[in-house]
């Protein structure tokens, strides 16, 4: 899980071009939207694409998305759950 969280942070920094941010600047529980990293709706779309293209997870329901994208840990948990379902 912790490995996945580390990787996800790097993925997020790259996908959103957060040039001045490094992985140590935020942790798994830092809010991604509004406060914390302060991302917006366009960033949300990019993260949904990231989850789908790189991790094969489709999150379509808007309520579920708000939940899954609230922080990095929630994203990781969603991916893990999808992986377990695949097994």
């Amino acid at each position, binding site marked *: 899980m912790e490995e996945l969280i580390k990787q996800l942070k790097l993925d997020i920094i790259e996908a959103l071009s957060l040039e001045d941010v490094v992985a140590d600047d935020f942790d798994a529980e830092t809010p991604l939207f509004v406060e914390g990293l302060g991302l917006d*709706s*366009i960033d949300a*779309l990019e993260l949904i*694409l990231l989850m789908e293209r790189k991790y094969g997870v489709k999150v379509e329901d808007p309520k579920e998305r708000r939940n899954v994208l609230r922080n990095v840990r929630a994203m990781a948990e969603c991916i893990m759950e999808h992986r377990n379902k695949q097994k």
Partner: protein
Amino acid sequence: MGTRVFVTGLGIISAIGNGTEETLDSFNKLKSGIGRLTHIKSLHDNIPVAEVAFAYNDLLNIAGVQHSLNIYTRNTLLAIIAASQAVENSGWLNAFEKRTGAVFATTVGGMDFNEKYYKSLLESDQYKDFINVFDSADCGEKVASHFGISRNITTISTACSSSANAIILGSRLIKNGKLDRVLVGGTDALTRFTLNGFFALEILSPKGCTPFDRDRNGLTIGEGAAFLILESEEVADPQKVICEVSGFANINEAYHATASTADGFGAAMAMTKALLSAELNPSDITYINAHGTGTEINDLSEGKAIENVFNGAIPRVSSTKGFTGHTLGAAGAIEAVFSALAIREQKALPGLGFKNRMPELSFDPQLKPETMKVKHVMSNSFGFGGSNATLIFSKV
């Protein structure tokens, strides 16, 4: 301010027909142009689109151009076809008889060729002859050459409000005494580029757009072209006058790159300013051809704006995008042609796909063509980047 601006010619090609007669027939029969993707191969061919019925070779024939002499994108062929109709039915003899210019609009430019040949061009020069048709000026220059227009030619690209802005500029060029006659309009062909862009934005309707419906779930991309001939009162042949461009407004919402405000502030500003420029009251408007894309945000935003501006006295409203899809850069001109037709035919035009009223609104869109006294028509076009344009056309 300045001379009056009259519309003396119309031309259109879209998913609901080639020319104004076929178009009106589709409205009368409530026949939508939305269907399956056939002209392009795409992963997303399960998503409804509104294509012009003709394949590329058919468009070449209709446009009557020599493919051996020049390279014509689908985008340009649509423009030539629509512009030719407008030119012909305005009684145009040549480009020199009146001080003439042209204002074009497009968002995709030559992307239908660009996306086909780009990868190959990065590897070899085999298709180098096509390079000069990729950008947004090509269709305008091909049309201008076709009709011998040599001065005051330009192209506007402001997303979905592009061709509405072209009509505004054309009108202002006449009012400022720079030109007596302007060919104005826009064109956008369907491309994988835009289909994938809108798909990634998650705003495409999986079943076809249903503007102003409570359960609407996105827009449907269409393609097409439309042109109008605008002339000053001094030079226009009274027999050819269809209607007047009596008011317009261009504002920027300055809110978000792709979305509008939920309270419709930007839309209301555009409509109010247009009414002011036409020296009209909201109660003077008989029919609104709304932007009405069928997305959750736009229809809420525009619907609320209509409620606020027209406050209890809401005119007939419809979005014709249930017929033509959202034709992006061509939408403003296509819907301007519809507005002119509404005046010529004295009919409010219908929308399609509506089943249940939006809880936030007090009105239903117009569901059937309705013969009535149509004096003033408002047409809205709201684009990405907050670019909002409203036009008002009036019976002369």
